[in-house]
């Protein structure tokens, strides 16, 4: 294919019979074609970009209860992951009594949604306690929430440099009230 028949120029009247010298050139076109075909195959079949992993460390489950001072609720932010692809966020009050008001808000997983909520809360905690790393995010996935949701939230933790966070079962009384309010099951 790559070689075209080109009439040899000049010397037309050469009459002397000579044994034809065979060219040592081999037509490599087909070989190259095959080579590239195989390369393409292996390139496509190979798993080149290895998937990334996200490391999760859970606290050890100890049977003995350690005497740790409870975290002040005013340093926290609770994020409840619902089955409808949204995040219900709220700040639990330090003390609960009859006229405790709790504002709950729901948002999505986008960079303008939950990320803004976390950043706003970081700012508040910084104003109140002088350091934004004091913020403690409590992630409370409901059983019917999606795996993608938990990955997104853990990712937001690393994007926003939240140092202290934990994945917790939505078990305290406020959680159950909120789950009831938004019509989700905790079990």
């Amino acid at each position, binding site marked *: 294919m790559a070689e*075209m028949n080109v009439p040899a120029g000049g010397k037309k009247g050469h009459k002397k019979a000579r044994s034809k010298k065979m060219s040592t*050139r081999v037509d490599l076109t087909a070989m*190259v074609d095959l080579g590239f075909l195989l390369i393409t195959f292996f390139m496509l079949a190979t798993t080149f970009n290895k998937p990334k992993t996200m*490391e999760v460390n*859970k606290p050890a489950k100890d049977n003995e209860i350690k005497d740790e001072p409870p975290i002040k609720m005013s340093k926290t932010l609770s994020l409840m992951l619902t089955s409808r692809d949204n995040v219900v966020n709220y700040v639990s009050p330090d003390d609960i009594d009859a006229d405790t008001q709790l504002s709950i808000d729901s948002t999505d997983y986008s960079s303008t949604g939950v990320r803004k909520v976390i950043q706003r809360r970081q700012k508040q905690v910084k104003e109140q306690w002088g350091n934004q790393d004091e913020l403690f995010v409590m992630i409370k996935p409901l059983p019917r929430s999606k*795996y993608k949701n938990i990955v997104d939230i853990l990712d937001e933790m690393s*994007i926003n440099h939240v140092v202290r966070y934990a994945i917790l079962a939505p078990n305290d009384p406020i959680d159950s009230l909120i789950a009831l309010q938004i019509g989700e099951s905790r079990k």
Partner: protein
Amino acid sequence: MPKVKIPRKSTAIDMTAMCDVAFLLLTFFILTTKFRAAEVVQIDIPSSTAQIPIPDKGIMMFNIAPDGKMFFGLDDQPTRLKLLSTLEEDYGFQLDDKQRIAFKTLELWGMDIRALPEFLKKDPNERAHVIQPGLKIDTVGGSQLEDLILIARKAYDLEPGRAENDRLRIAIKCDKTTEYQAFDKLIEALQNRKVNKFNLITSAKTAKE
């Protein structure tokens, strides 16, 4: 003035170099290729900004399908065999060499451990068409999931000559739409066996501002 004659050039190109390069690349790809394992179940992983690549070896892999079915896989073949012989003892079944070899090449599986001998007896083509029911996760009569975790870790970590920092790592691959409760069951089983550190497999993306 003599006419300048431009000699007609041949259109033949010397392809030797091109051929060399092509085959060099070919050799490279053949040697570095690691074929994608046949997928027992289709899993669409979520993306994250995490940048840690998955380790090359020493992985215990759990896959959870969208419907909550769980699958188990070990990447190290000697460990697979050790796991199998312990399972034979603990669950009281006897396998022949053919079944053992079949298990050795099994990348991922998910079924009641007691159903394994029957499954391994089938020929490879037939096996590929079996729809596996997923690991048995209910804990009636002891948790099979916890057994697997414990036995696999023992088999890998206690191998003579294993380096101190070379420990079986746990990777979890879940579908985007898997419900959290299925994932939570696995975490629960892992934590019951004192595994508190594991890797979630995600595909890469960049953080949007």
